[in-house]
């Protein structure tokens, strides 16, 4: 065999994270996604410095004489909203809310969903049965009603809306992961781990999770868009952020009927959501490719 071994000898033990990160950066698509995420996080953290206008200022020259919002122009790059506020500044500030919802809350939902699904699928038996029936229950759970109750009982806040989203959005994920885990658990390589004496946590994290990554990426990134939009509905019912605090979702929601007369109010925040979801998807896909060696070299 004319094998051409390049690096024989002990491989230096590099930090896995650094390795994955650098692998990510080597892929242009993933790097692009990372860049978008970094920019958005930057915008969220340093919004105060970046915003060209006060996002709450209902500026006098922000509306036409008859009260119509202004299209994008030199003063207001992304135009103004129905109260004459600068849309660009509001979008930047809205990044905070939307990242917290789309990334943190959705992330929690993903973790909970995956957690419940894996636990139910891996342990099976009565634990699995109880968890899955609970999932069914949550699936049929009237989320909007919950929102109304919470809205009336608690002071509205981002925390609560994030909580509601995390509470209701894990269900689909959990069901899909459950089915996959069920079949993975039957497979020999998991049995081997048990025979070696690996603990449940180790088996789940090190051996099951990598195989579930592709579903998790799909659901996680799709969840970004849905949760960001869901936040708007919940805020509308009074649980979420309060006006005048902007979020991408509620900018769209407030203005959607105006999309023919003031399209920038709908399409620009919409584009922001698509971009965010896309960025995570690019990174997620790349991550899966990196962690899934069977796909290596297939691109």
């Amino acid at each position, binding site marked *: 065999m004319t094998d051409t071994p390049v690096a024989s000898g002990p491989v230096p033990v590099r930090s896995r994270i650094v390795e994955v990160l650098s692998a990510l950066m080597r892929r242009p698509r993933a790097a692009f996604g990372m860049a978008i995420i970094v920019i958005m996080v930057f915008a969220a953290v340093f919004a105060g410095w970046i915003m060209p206008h006060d996002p709450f200022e209902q500026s006098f020259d922000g509306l036409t004489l008859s009260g119509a919002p202004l299209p994008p122009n030199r003063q207001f790059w992304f135009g103004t909203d129905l109260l004459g506020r600068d849309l660009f500044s509001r979008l930047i500030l809205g990044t905070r809310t939307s990242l917290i919802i789309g990334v943190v809350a959705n992330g929690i939902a993903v973790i909970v969903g995956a957690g419940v699904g894996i636990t139910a699928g891996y342990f099976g038996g009565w634990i699995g049965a109880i968890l899955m029936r609970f999932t069914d229950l949550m699936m049929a759970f009237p989320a909007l009603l919950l929102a109304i109750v919470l809205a009336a009982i608690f002071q509205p806040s981002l925390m609560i809306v994030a909580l509601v989203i995390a509470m209701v959005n894990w269900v689909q994920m959990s069901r899909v992961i459950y089915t996959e885990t069920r079949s993975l658990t039957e497979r020999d390589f998991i049995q081997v781990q048990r025979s070696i004496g690996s603990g449940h946590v180790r088996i789940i994290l090190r051996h099951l999770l990598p195989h579930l990554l592709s579903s998790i990426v799909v659901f996680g990134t799709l969840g970004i868009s849905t949760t960001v939009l869901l936040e708007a509905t919940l805020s509308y019912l009074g649980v979420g952020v309060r006006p005048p605090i902007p979020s991408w979702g509620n900018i769209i929601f407030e203005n959607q*009927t105006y999309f023919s007369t003031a399209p920038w109010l709908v399409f620009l925040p919409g584009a922001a959501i698509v971009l965010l979801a896309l960025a995570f998807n690019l990174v997620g896909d790349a991550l899966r490719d990196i962690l899934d060696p069977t796909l290596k070299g297939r691109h």
Partner: protein
Amino acid sequence: MASYILRRLLQSALILLGITLVTFVLLYLVPADPARQIAGRSATAETVANIRAQLGLDQPFFVQYWRYLTGLLQGDLGRSYLQRTEVSELVASRLPATLLLMAGAIACELALGLTIGIIAALKRNSRLDNGLMIFSFISISAPQFVVGILLLYVFAVKLGWFPIGGYGTFAHLVLPAVTLGFLGGGWYSRMMRSSMIDVLGQDFVRTARANGLSKWRIVLRHVLPNAILPIIAMIGIDIGLFMSGIVVVESVFGWPGIGQLAWQAIQRVDIPIIMGVTLVSATAIVLGNLLADLTAPLIDPRIKLK
């Protein structure tokens, strides 16, 4: 099989019981007094108290709940507080439209989602795949209202191919179904793509190729049925989603579905309607999941119903 269904139905009944309880608790907690809404502005405190007593709202929680349950067992969903109509009648009048739209929407979702998903998986990492990915994310992120009105404007108003909203004929169904299909298709296409890629790497696909089968035959007959299982689970979930109503699309197209009823009821805290709608949609979710679980073995004979 029959016993499996029976067992699942029994479990479902328990879940439904759980749902009614949770919903009832939530409604109990909502700080909005239905009696006051019924009584109107001109009513005195006594009148309100009187109404409360008539509706049994002054009873302790469990008495109210028990009453509701016994009514339910006799098929009585109660009467709407504000519309004063039998909830069963209200729900029944909207059920056909909801079911029809659901069927249409799922058909569109599948058509769109499967097509895109399959093409994207076959051409993965190509430029086409990238384009389709962006399309999927746009479709998922698009506000229903905007998509609905745009379609309506182009295909109904400008081109005149379809009526401007309404309910009745097949032509009425097309646009709302396509709107929903556009939105759900994005989900399905991403899921389909990923499960197709998994299946494409399996041994029997190699066998099929070794047997000289044509590409499309391999994709449609061999890969698709193996890849579609997660989608089927998704349809089960979707059924529930649709049953609890698609308010925006319904109101854009003037579609008399359950969503508008539910939304109005939630806004007005019309408890009997909320309970009724929740119950119906919960039933649909439970049945949808059951249906998905029953379909799975038809597609993959290895799956045994246990």
